[in-house]
């Protein structure tokens, strides 16, 4: 499997990552290694095997519909890179 630079750029954009040319090449090489490993796994016949989504056998881990206050308004905003007393602030993305 050989991944091209355009696919790398597309995936990087979707993940909001920025790479220099050199980094993109390095990432491309890593990607190829991962995909080769996947090719290896694909050699195994998994017809009629349900995909494993969860590592535990547990089902129906549910909550009752009860309200709990777990953090304060101030705590909620504490780690925000930009905020005011009420809101999280992000760069304006619509004019």
């Amino acid at each position, binding site marked *: 499997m050989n991944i091209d630079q355009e696919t790398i750029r597309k995936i990087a954009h979707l993940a909001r990552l920025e790479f220099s040319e050199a980094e993109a090449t390095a990432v491309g090489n890593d990607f190829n290694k991962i995909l080769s490993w996947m090719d290896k796994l694909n050699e195994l016949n998994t017809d009629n095997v349900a995909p494993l989504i969860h590592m535990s056998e547990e089902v129906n*881990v*549910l909550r009752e519909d009860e309200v709990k206050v*777990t953090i304060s*308004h101030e705590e909620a905003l504490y780690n925000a890179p930009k905020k005011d007393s009420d809101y*999280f602030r992000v760069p304006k*993305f619509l004019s």
Partner: protein
Amino acid sequence: MALDKAILDKYQPVIGLEVHAQLSTQSKIFAPDSTEFGSMPNTNVSVITLGHPGILPRLNKKVVEYAIKMGLACHCEINRVNFFDRKNYFYPDLPKGFQTTQDKAPICKGGYVNIKLKDGVEKTITLNRIHMEDDAGKNMHLAGEVDTLVDYNRAGVPLIEIVTEPDLRTSDEAFALMNELRKLVRYLEVCDGNMEEGSMRCDANISVMLKGAKEYGKKVEVKNMNSVRNVQRAIDFEIERQIELLEKGETIFSESRQFDAENGTTHGMRTKEELNDYRYFPEPDLQPLHISDKWLSDIRSTMPALPEELYARFHKDYSLSDYDISVLTDTKEMALYFDELCSKTKNYKAASNWVMGSVKSYLNELTLHLNDFPITTAVLSELIALIDSGKINYSVASQKIFPELLKADGRSPLKIAEELNLIQESDSGQLEPIVQEVLAKYPEKVTEYKNGKKGLMGLFVGEVMKASKGKADPKVTTALLNKFLDN
């Protein structure tokens, strides 16, 4: 835009709806934060809602039950083995970087909703699915503000998304479907159905094709309709816009468009993710959800009678008109009140007139809920019986006694009628002198009547009523007047 009807008639619109309904649970779908509307910004949040690293979401049991109720009401197949998927995209109102939804295994599959159109035609609209997901926060783009402000109170509020097949052909059908869905969520009490406040939202997928064509046209998604009426307006506008483009030989661009309620038009939106590649994959942090037979039947047993069922029963048991029944079944509360009233009186037509008339207008006037209506069905049935027995007439009952009953001070309709001296005089012996007195007062009118001016009867009856202070039985009075005048 006003296209010629002949041109519009060449095309067949094809419409599908995606309806989001906010479930009226106390807490969010995966976190215990309150879902209360209108709280101070960023107060109903938790580390789960804010998408902090290392958090573990936990599914709200009631969300599952509400989604299943809606599925059962829409005749869906309930999926017994559920899991959630991550729909990945970056947007500031989505702190986790993905929406938690059900892509592969929706909780409700298929199903249908029957709608009734204005001309009485019925149509079945097939559903594709109903699935559970979380709502996003709210972005605010204020004028003069360099930043976008984000409030995460709404993030994680539970939603069900009801997706129809492209079965709708007109905006009237979409209108009827929205009304029906809203009625259903309100009957089930799973959502308040308030489109203006955004607790019910609708996106419409619209395309047009030449009549007889085999393949659907390119579809356009229209968003942001905040009332059922606006869903209809947006669809009408979009159909014409697309036909006009096709008539000019242009192609339709598959896109998302925003409806503008001010001028009734739609305009293109910037897409959320230009590549529209959501890279769905199963959400590993939420354990699978299995629905047992027992759980399903427990949920089924808590379901109220639904509008369709009540409609059929009212038709059969009470032989009322389609119009009356549709008004009476509009809300669950009214249908139940009426049904209870009919267990106490056999005069179903009178019962329906009282509920649709005096009761409904009183509630509308004071914007009251039927649960807060002071007159019990037992008392109202006594009032109906009092009219049926001839002791009082309808106008006295509605104008004099009904307002007294609203005080709900324990007095019966009969007691009020006696206290206010409203018991009707139907003894012709008592009425005869009054009738003769009235006729003696208007000798010229009597002559005119005898010469053929039969319309004067109303005047005579009115005068007798006046002289008897409204207590004369109109039927007996008319009979007496006829007796004297025809001699």
